């Protein structure tokens, strides 16, 4: 391999007759003057002398001519040349000379360059593509720390140098984005990242609208030494069951956000909400006020008449009427029409039915304080509101604690933490038209969270729809397969991916990504490692049908087959065992019916015997 053609300080071409180049592989340029710079292959080409001729003229060189040339001894392969465009990974003051040799480096020569930390103290996310050839030269502590996975081949040994993300640089280069089209490997990568986050015991709050981020089930066929006990380090909470929002803690803005999540909220409705909601209102006090006022407005005349009639002498009713009329007098001019109040009630009830207000967020807080990863699962609208509320609260507490530390005051301890979510564009949409309760707090954290040790980890399949100040603050971006041009535009703008990488993006295989990282200062091509856990419902739905939804008749058939031969003479012998096995009542009629079915299907044979019928195994 040697340098050919034009060279510049940043880029050279290398050619080889024997060895095809691999995309992203690192090569060492044996240029003493420039202290042996490293280069990364960003484009490869293997071409035969035939190919340029084919394109120059309209026609393909016909097979006939090639075969005839072959008869005269011409070996087409001999004229194949492998070419690589190499981006130099150092700053040179002058171009590399043409003719200089290029070779695959030894691991020792690039170790400092590629391994920022050892695997125990960094996040091991996968392998660096293009370093496969160096696998055998890796020291033990870097071997098989990132096993790989391929759908048709299963779990595979590590090939290549591990890609280790250095989270210790986050205070300087905070926040991570994971972008890619559907099926590109985002969720998989998010899981891997969160596993590493758990391994480092970084407290994390994960909003999981897909109900897929639990970590109790081990990835199938994973070698035991590679497994990890993630159940101990994570907590999964269901929004509305395990966690919710205590109504008493809501302020007017929170309440508005919540109601917006349950349906559109007009300006009139908002006015009414702000007027009617009092600090430390409980759900009951607020909804009662709403109900009474609605009734009062609707029946004002009636009630006044009843009052004039002294409520038929019922003192309790009289007090009630007075109370309601007082409400009417107080709010009538400020809350608009009854229909507005009804609309608010409907939304409020919907939230109540979803059990939004039945519990608090203590379980989340406790998990964070214990340096666990806490996953909150729920429908996205609920998570938007709950997330906004929780994140705002935690961020405030973290800030207060840290500010107090500075001034020497007392404040409850609150640790640094991570906020992670898939479908981030739903939590912080770019378009200001779309109401999104969590947008502003996420933006605040994006901009100043690093000061307090609060970091974002956002995955999205639509970077173009994600709030743009947030996108700009994501210092490390993992870019998976992307096809949509609006998303490609954002990636082009917001990462240091070069035109070659952008061109490759639509064709990346699932699990392959470019990592554009401000702390590393260049783009690295990686393959994400196999996850150590799986989503509990990642089974194929049809496989699930086959395994979990066997029709009762099918089960009975299977059980009966093991009891053959069967007949009137021994039904009672087997009945007990059968019932126990299938855990239900079974009648002789059902058994007979089932056996007859199997005879019809040709599964077993039937013979009339002296003592009745006998069902038995087919002879062939």
């Amino acid at each position, binding site marked *: 391999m040697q340098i050919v053609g034009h060279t510049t300080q940043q880029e050279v071409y290398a050619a080889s007759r024997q060895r095809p180049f691999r995309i992203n592989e690192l090569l060492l340029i044996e240029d003493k003057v420039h202290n042996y710079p490293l280069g990364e292959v960003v484009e490869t080409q293997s071409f035969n002398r035939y190919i340029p001729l084919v394109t120059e003229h309209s026609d393909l060189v016909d097979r006939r001519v090639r075969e*005839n040339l072959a008869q005269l001894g011409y070996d087409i392969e*001999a004229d194949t040349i492998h070419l690589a465009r190499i981006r130099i990974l150092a700053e040179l003051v002058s171009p590399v000379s043409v003719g200089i040799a290029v070779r695959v480096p030894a691991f020792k020569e690039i170790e400092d360059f590629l391994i920022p930390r050892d695997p125990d103290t960094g996040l091991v996310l996968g392998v660096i593509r293009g370093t496969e050839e160096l696998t055998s030269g890796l020291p033990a502590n870097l071997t098989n720390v990132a096993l790989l996975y391929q759908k048709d081949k299963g779990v595979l040994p590590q090939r290549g140098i591990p890609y280790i993300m250095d989270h210790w640089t986050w205070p300087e280069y905070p926040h991570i984005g994971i972008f890619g089209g559907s099926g590109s490997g985002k969720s998989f990568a998010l899981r891997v990242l969160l596993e590493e986050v758990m391994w480092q015991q970084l407290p994390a709050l994960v909003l999981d609208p897909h109900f897929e981020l639990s970590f109790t089930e081990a990835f199938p066929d994973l070698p035991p030494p590679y497994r990890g006990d993630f159940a101990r380090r994570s907590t999964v909470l269901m929004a509305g069951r395990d966690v919710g929002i205590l109504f008493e803690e809501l302020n007017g803005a929170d309440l508005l956000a919540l109601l917006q999540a349950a349906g559109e909220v007009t300006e009139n409705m908002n006015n009414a909400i702000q007027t009617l909601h009092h600090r430390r209102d409980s759900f009951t006090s607020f909804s009662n006020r709403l109900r009474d006022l609605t009734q009062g407005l609707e029946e004002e005349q009636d009630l006044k008449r009843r009052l004039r009639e002294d409520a038929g002498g019922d003192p309790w009713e009289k007090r009630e009427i007075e109370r309601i009329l007082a409400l009417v007098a107080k709010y009538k001019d400020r809350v608009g029409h009854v229909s507005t109040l009804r609309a608010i009630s409907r939304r409020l009830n919907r939230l109540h039915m979803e059990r939004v207000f039945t519990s608090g967020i203590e379980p989340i807080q406790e998990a964070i304080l214990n340096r666990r990863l806490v996953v909150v699962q729920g429908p996205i609208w609920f998570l938007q509101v709950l997330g906004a509320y929780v994140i705002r609260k935690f961020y405030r507490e973290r800030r207060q604690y840290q500010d107090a530390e500075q001034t020497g005051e007392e404040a409850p301890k609150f640790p640094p933490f991570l906020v992670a979510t898939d479908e981030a564009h739903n939590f912080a949409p770019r378009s200001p038209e779309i109401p999104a309760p969590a947008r502003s707090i996420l933006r605040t954290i994006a901009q100043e969270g690093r000061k307090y040790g609060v970091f974002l980890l956002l995955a999205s399949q639509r970077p173009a729809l994600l709030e743009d100040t947030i996108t700009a603050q994501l210092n490390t971006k993992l870019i998976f397969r992307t096809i949509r041009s609006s998303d490609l535009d954002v990636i082009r703008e917001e990462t240091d991916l070069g035109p070659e990488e952008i061109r490759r993006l639509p064709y990346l295989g699932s699990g392959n990504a470019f990592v554009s990282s401000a702390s590393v200062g260049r783009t690295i091509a990686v393959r994400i490692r196999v996850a150590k856990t799986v989503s509990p419902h990642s089974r194929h739905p049809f496989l699930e049908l086959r395994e979990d939804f066997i029709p009762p008749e099918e089960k009975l058939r299977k059980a009966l087959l093991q009891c053959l031969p069967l007949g009137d003479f021994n039904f009672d012998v087997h009945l007990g065992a059968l019932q126990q096995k299938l855990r239900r009542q079974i009648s002789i009629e059902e058994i007979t019916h089932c056996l007859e079915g199997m005879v019809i299907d040709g599964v077993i044979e039937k013979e009339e015997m002296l003592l009745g019928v006998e069902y038995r195994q087919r002879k062939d």
Partner: protein
Amino acid sequence: MLVVDKGLQKLLKNVNLSLRDRTLNYPSREAIRQYLGKKVGIFHKPAPLKANTLEALAGGRPLLGVDGSVHSYGATFPHIIHCFRALAAATTSAVENGIFQVDLFYPEMAPHRREIEEMVSRAAADGEVLTPEAAAARVVRQKLAVLEIEVAIEAVRRYQPFAVLFDGGFLRYGGLAPSQWQTYRELSLARDVMSVGVIEEVGTFDLARYVSGSFPGATSFGCDRELLFGLLDRGEWLAIREGLKFKKTYYTCFARPGRHPGVVAYDFFQEQSRQVAKFIPLLFALTPLGGRGIPHWLDLVDNAVRIRRSEMELLLATGLDKGVRERLFVPKREGRIL
């Protein structure tokens, strides 16, 4: 000028008219073919070579392709550098592993200046007056021809080919480098090597002249290329009758090996004219149907030997000091903005 120049367009229209008038008066294709068949030569349409017969025909020996290239860089005489490269490649190895020879000619260097002076005085002896510039141009052409013949000789010795394809006719070699060409000729004949000069752009007039006037209406056919355009069927070739030798020393025939209706010409040594009929199907078999009519091996050789502008620039950039280069060689037009 982004819009078509009206004045030039009109002038071009006249050219078109006069050419069209000429073709209007053409006799029919059949009439011309009949005439040529009777008076000039014979049309052959050999059966295509059968698959897997080539190796046997070649006797296990390789095919050789020979070509040369010259690239000149500079603004004005004498500050022009000429780089030469010739290549003879055998089909038994990669084109790049063929026999290369290079040369350089720069009129300001003493030995090269002497060559120009010699050329001028030799011409003077023949009563011809040459400017140094014209003499230099002739030296350049001569050097290229010599270089090509030299690689051909070396390759014939080394590879024992059954045939040699030259990119271009034989007249150029014989005219510019007679003694080297003679050496090659004797060597190749002695070793039973078939030599062919493949001419892509037929530039002769002999046939056209011969035919013009033989038809009522005194049609003029201009040149051979015009006369023969579309006249041959695909896979057909035209042998010129013995005795009607247009090129004295060589045996020339015309052929249409592919789909393109234009013809190519093949030059052979007279001594080998009897083998031509057997050899042409082999040439056809090596020529892509969709191409320009050149055997593919020659295309590969041509491609490998050509000195491209980018290569020349790289050479000069790495070989000459920047000051020297700027002062003497970089044409001002390279600085043009438009």
